[in-house]
């Protein structure tokens, strides 16, 4: 049967049927319709994917928490010894990389929310004006989002390379005496990478805001124009307030991106001094020379706690809103 006529596009179909209190589900009373075989089928349908997901994602997350309180070299289970909070103590007081990493993760988030996010919003508002070539512009801004972060790392190395890179070749900073090391200098390299990260993030934010702007009721704009508001007033007082749900998503996405940042930094300079991140420290404990599993897990737990502090409230709020819809 051809269903294309029924469902034109994901955007149309994804509109939840408001007012339908049952939300398109089979109400409780109809459970009697399910035979025993149906129940078994349903159990398997939900059970198998859940087992895979929980085993590989949540059990491992819990194992990270458990291992964080032990010391283990990975050889044999009987070598695991309980050490209480020792790993955390050492991490917070004695690890020269830990606090810089936390600081860099925070800087990463602040930089992304201050520069590429408003830029993405600006681009989205301009591109939303039904202008010619809108598609072409959008593609240019969105291209970096489609590409792998590892590839982006290589592309920006060609720009920042102190000897052969574009910037130093242009400003003549590849000569001894006035040599600028964008990749190795701990005062510079984080900002250099953040420019590359922002370059990618702006396009991502632009797409999210464009989708949000699509949902703004055109009659609001018309009313605002009739009232004689100029473009800026319309945006500030009419459009922006209606983008609140989008802003929430943007905020959460940006926090998650800042916590996840890894590929770009790893390709760029392996997370050397100046660009340490929590994700890099965890990974170094596995593929690096030291294999301190308990210690690496303690860093992962810090990352987990910060992430869940953002994820759980956000999801609960989201689902609650859906229930009310």
């Amino acid at each position, binding site marked *: 049967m051809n*269903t294309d006529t029924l469902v034109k596009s994901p955007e149309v179909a994804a509109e939840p049927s408001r007012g339908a209190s049952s939300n*398109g589900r089979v109400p409780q009373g109809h459970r009697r319709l399910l035979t025993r075989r149906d129940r078994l089928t349903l159990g398997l349908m939900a059970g198998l994917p859940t087992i895979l997901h929980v085993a590989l*994602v949540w059990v491992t997350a819990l194992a*990270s928490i458990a291992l964080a309180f032990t010391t283990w070299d990975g050889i044999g289970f009987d070598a695991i010894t309980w050490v209480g909070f020792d790993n955390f103590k050492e991490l917070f007081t004695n690890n020269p990389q830990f606090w810089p990493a936390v600081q860099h993760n925070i800087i990463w988030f602040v930089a992304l929310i201050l520069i590429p996010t408003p830029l993405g919003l600006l681009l989205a508002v301009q591109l939303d004006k039904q202008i010619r070539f809108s598609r072409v512009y959008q593609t240019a801004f969105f291209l970096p989002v489609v*590409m792998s972060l590892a590839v982006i790392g290589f592309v920006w190395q060609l720009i920042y390379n102190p000897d052969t890179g574009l910037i130093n070749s242009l400003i003549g900073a590849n000569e001894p005496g006035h040599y600028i090391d964008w990749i190795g200098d701990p005062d510079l390299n984080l900002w250099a990478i953040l420019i590359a990260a922002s370059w990618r993030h702006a396009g991502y934010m632009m797409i*999210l805001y464009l989708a949000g702007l699509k949902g703004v009721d055109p009659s609001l704009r018309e009313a605002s124009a009739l009232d004689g508001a100029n473009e800026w007033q319309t945006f500030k007082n009419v459009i922006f307030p209606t983008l609140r749900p989008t802003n929430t998503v943007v905020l959460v996405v940006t926090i998650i991106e800042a916590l996840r940042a890894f590929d770009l930094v790893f390709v760029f300079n392996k997370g050397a001094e100046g660009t340490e991140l929590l994700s890099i420290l965890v*990974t170094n404990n*596995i593929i690096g020379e030291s294999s301190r599993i308990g210690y690496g897990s303690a860093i992962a737990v810090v990352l*987990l706690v910060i992430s869940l502090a953002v994820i759980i409230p956000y999801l609960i709020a989201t689902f609650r809103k859906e229930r009310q819809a």
Partner: protein
Amino acid sequence: MSTLDTTTTTAASAPATQRTPVRPARILLHLFLAGAALAWLAPLLWALYAAMRPYGETSDKGYVSWPDKLSFENFTNAFTQSEMTHYFVNTLIIAVPAVLLTLFLSSMVAFYVSRFDFRINLFLLLVFTAGNLLPQQVIITPLYRLYLLIDIPGITMSGKLYDSALGLVLIHVAFQSGFCAFVLSNYMRSLPHELTEAALVDGASVWRLYWQIVLPLCKPAMAALATLLSIWIYNDFFWALVLISTGENMPITSALNNLSGQYFTDPNLVAAGALLTAIPTLIVYFALQRQFVSGLTLGANKG
């Protein structure tokens, strides 16, 4: 005179689709957008320019210089010398099963939580969605150990889940099914519930309901998610970096890291290799632009 009346009333609310006459403001806007778009493409164009020049020439004249000759030689060299075909195949072996399996499993979960009123639904969906939002590094240490523990004789060289395509497929499926279950459950919830009810009353089995009624209606969402997943899994760098040890078994994006280590003396060749790696994602994106963007926004806001 009625025509006059209609024109005056419609003028106030001119349709948005009507082309506005060219105004200075419009020209400025186009200048701004074109300038910004060019600035955004500049890094990629620079990489392309570097990749099209022989290394000898750039080391003589410097990178900021007029080219003596432009060619695709670096591209062919990178492609043949680093056996890129082999790594592309590796990626396919991982990505194709991972995408299909993710869609299959997550659509079953979505069906369960969206079409029936079980008490566990909300919690189940929360678990899946939250799992997908965790940073990968939170789970990598135990996962790496787990993969070293699990023996799967006969399938892989190592005899373990570690360093195997199967291991990567499993973690991709486990991780990505969170996002897909969330998007698909929203999508399925919007389907009219008379569909399911009528079929249930007629005595259709639950499996039939899912396979023959609900799933075909989800085609647009599935296409969007398939596009998104293909690009994400192709672009994955981290899982393969940690969970694959033999260079031979690496998917293309992680193999690029080895390529750069091997040819670090020739940045032009590395640039060509990086751009070659990006080509398949760009092809998928240009071919399925609408699906990709709608997939992204489906996850972010519904409708």
